[in-house]
């Protein structure tokens, strides 16, 4: 079940909301258990068997948490191993087998296993709890139901954001809902739904149609179109889902942190990673990079840390070498950027004025965007073949060996181009203009009128989203595969 499905919008969510809010606010435990019940139903609807894997993981986490709280390193190590074990088996086992076969000439057979939905997300969530518990940053959750609720909570269960236990510790055992928060949450949910259905799904057609063509017919311009479309699709799909998750969390009294902050207006790669999938990048920073020493070590060790963290980041996204290469691509860019900043601070800081910085800013936006698109080109083609990866990148700059190149018309993509353009505008620095307009001080009557118009707009957008869900069959969730 996905958020942008009719069964969720018209059956699951209304039933959940009615059941939850019918219970008086004073009966906190009952409300939480109802939420837990519906979260279990939500997951079981998609993965009836793998729910037991999750239940077992919760049980193991709960049973180890007592010893972990007492700073037992053995308990910490064991619990981390047990929590990571399902992830390794379901996601990485075949990758390991394939590479062992290639490296050592073994003949191990791949195992037919479907990956449980959201395993990468909830595994990392559990890890934040265990590690923060060990560090003393959070209190042990003594109620197994509340711990299960933290892990199973359906708004963020299958595609994030990766919610840290510390962020919702108090909300688990208290009812923090209010009318304002419910409305705010509903508004956020509708925006997320619109991003997903009206932009991401439409732009996704372009990606899937071009992706379905023989590579020999995809010329340079179509390759760029496909990559840019994927860039927009991924952002609106994932941030739309995050918006829906945050909105739903708010409705139920949970405050999830923001997961995206207009990443395509970044002026540098490091800026990009402060804006894109923030919950994941901060996880790797706080639980992998910093414990390894971060940047507070000698130069060689720092390079090692960066490479390892980004390799793991790539692997987290998928068990294929293109994801590893994608991670290393960003490692290299970040290292180059750090070097440039270092030189700037040493030699140019007193020479280059703010005026000059403002002049080159649009170019830095553009450069960062282009570098991001190139990165997504590597990301979007799942492959272990390095030559294929090179060909995909090469095709962005040259179309030798292209025969009978396809066109937008040939694939009947004309009607999706306006959605792509809207997506580009809404994710570009032009969106900052809206923010500036919003930041002004207005008289009361304008504020009230603005709120009414905003709500009417949201209702219209909601109805339009339903229309598109009903009338179209294409409704993928890209980050599901992680």
């Amino acid at each position: 079940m996905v958020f942008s499905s009719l069964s969720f919008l018209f059956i699951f969510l209304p039933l959940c909301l009615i059941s939850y809010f019918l219970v008086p606010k004073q009966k906190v435990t009952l409300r939480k258990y109802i939420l837990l019940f519906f979260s279990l139903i939500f997951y079981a609807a998609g993965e009836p068997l793998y729910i037991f894997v999750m239940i077992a993981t919760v049980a193991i986490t709960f049973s180890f948490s007592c010893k972990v709280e007492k700073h037992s390193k053995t308990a910490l190590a064991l619990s981390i191993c047990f929590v990571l074990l399902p992830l390794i088996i379901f996601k990485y086992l075949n990758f390991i087998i394939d590479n062992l076969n290639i490296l050592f000439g073994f003949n191990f057979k791949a195992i037919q296993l479907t990956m449980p939905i959201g395993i990468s997300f909830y595994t990392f969530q559990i890890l934040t709890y265990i590690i923060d518990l060990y560090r003393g940053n959070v209190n042990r959750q003594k109620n197994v139901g509340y711990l299960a609720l933290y892990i199973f909570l359906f708004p963020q269960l299958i595609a994030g954001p990766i919610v840290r236990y510390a962020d919702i510790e108090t909300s688990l055992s208290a009812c923090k809902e209010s009318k304002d928060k419910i409305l705010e949450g509903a508004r956020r949910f509708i925006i997320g739904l619109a991003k997903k259905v009206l932009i991401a799904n439409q732009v996704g057609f372009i990606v899937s149609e071009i992706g379905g063509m023989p590579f020999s017919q995809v010329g340079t311009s179509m390759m760029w179109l496909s990559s840019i479309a994927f860039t927009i699709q991924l952002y609106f799909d994932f941030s739309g889902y995050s918006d829906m998750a945050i909105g739903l969390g708010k409705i139920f009294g949970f405050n999830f942190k923001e997961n995206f902050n207009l990443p395509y207006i970044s002026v540098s790669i490091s800026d990009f990673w402060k804006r894109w999938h923030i919950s994941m990048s901060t996880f790797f920073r706080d639980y992998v990079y910093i414990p390894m020493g971060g940047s507070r070590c000698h130069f060689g060790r720092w390079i090692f840390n960066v490479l390892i963290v980004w390799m793991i980041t790539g692997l987290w996204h998928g068990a294929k070498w293109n994801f590893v290469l994608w991670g290393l691509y960003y490692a290299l860019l970040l290292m180059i950027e750090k070097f440039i900043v270092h030189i700037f601070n040493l030699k140019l800081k007193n020479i280059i004025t703010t005026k000059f910085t403002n002049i080159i800013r649009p170019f830095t936006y553009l450069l960062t965007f282009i570098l991001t698109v190139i990165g997504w080109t590597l990301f979007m083609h799942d492959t272990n073949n390095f030559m294929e990866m090179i060909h995909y990148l090469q095709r962005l700059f040259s179309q030798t060996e292209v025969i009978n190149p396809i066109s937008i018309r040939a694939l009947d993509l004309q009607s999706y181009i306006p959605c792509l353009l809207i997506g580009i505008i809404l994710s570009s620095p032009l969106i900052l203009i809206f923010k500036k307009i919003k930041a002004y001080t207005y008289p009361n009557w304008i504020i009230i009128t603005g709120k009414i118009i905003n709500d009417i707009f949201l209702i219209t957008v909601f109805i339009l989203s339903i229309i598109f869900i009903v009338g179209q069959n294409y409704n993928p969730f890209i980050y599901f595969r992680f």
Partner: protein
Amino acid sequence: MKYISTLIIILTIITFCITSYLWIPQNKISNLEMRTLATFNMAFHPNTDSIVYKTTFIARLEEAMKDQFVFRNIIVKKLSELKANLGNLYDLILNYVNFNNKKVKTYQEYKHPKLEKFPKQQYTLSKIGDFYRINNTNYLCEAPNPKPQNSQLISFRIDQIHHIQQLYPKIKIYSYFVSSIDMTPWFDSYLGITTPDLFEEIAQALPDNIKVKRLVYKDFEEYKKLFFASDHHLNYKGSLKTYQDIYEMISADFALPEYKKAIEIWDFSYLFGIKYRGSRANRLQEDYNGWDKFIVFEHNLGNRQTSALNPKTLKETPAVLSLFNNYKNGSIYFDIYYDHYIHFYGDALLENGITVNDQNYIYVIRNNIKTGHNLLLITDSSGRAIRDVLGTLFDTLVYIDYRIISKINIDYIIDKYKIDIILLNGFGTVWTNDEFVFHFSDNFHNREKN
């Protein structure tokens, strides 16, 4: 005051949610989409043979909710219109950018003989829905349109024909205009308008080595023999007349095989009780009770190979063109809204069993007759009925509906199939529709420059 907008939002959303499923008629078939619909019964009692079967309960429930959604037909129709409009907008902008800065060319140096004119007649029209009854009969037509056509678009269309002629001077181009009754001046005095002669205007703008001819009928009685009452297409006699006209036009310049007479007439209405309600009847639904007989001519098509070319992948697959064999065997869809003309002539069966149509595929007919001539037939739906019999006259016939001509590079087709004759066939909309745009491969234009 603070919560009024809140209350409005809540009530609107709840009302929308509830009314969405207030009436659940459990439709089993969609006439609009021509497919089986998933029902709630199927979600709970799955039928693995059904085309809408899904493996999980949630997926089946989701399909049922989508297929049984209130106003689904309107939603699907409006979405498809939106998609078409957005596509047209893209084409318009692109055409404007590419061609609008060019001046409208006049080709007064070309002088065609005038097209055969329609004799003067006067008939009446009475409105029925979006159409008109002619002389209070069951024969329907569109509204005659006295407005001048988009001269920019027609000029662009003619520019393209000129361009092809210049690039391929050895190719002989013909144009056959299928005149619908609303293009004649027969209703001018009744309506107090002057209907412009679009085809004459186009004919005079074309190069004079392009032969042109139009379908002419002398009065309404002859019109009734040639056209369906409830559909905008020509019936079997009308299609035969266009074939005869085209044969006459082309055989004056080329030595074609003998004119093929029909060997059989198949009256499917008599044989299987088909009451053909065509495109206009389908739009009018219960407001119009007319229908037509569905009759076709059978010709001896000889020993030929037929295939369907996918314009996206450029892969050619052996295919049986038209559903003639199905109809002969009684394997017919009897739904009152089923468009027999479109499917009978327009569909093809690929060798893997999949049915395709001429809105997505290009059809190729090859004969072992060695005339040395290969025809490219660019047409609208009026060309469907004459495709197969025309195909007997050439070594190869390539049939492309003009609505998908922009999906393939025209030079690719001309070079691959060694086309030496091009026939443009169709109603006025072929010339006035945005979709009819030739495209050339980039390599082709570079070759030109060199």
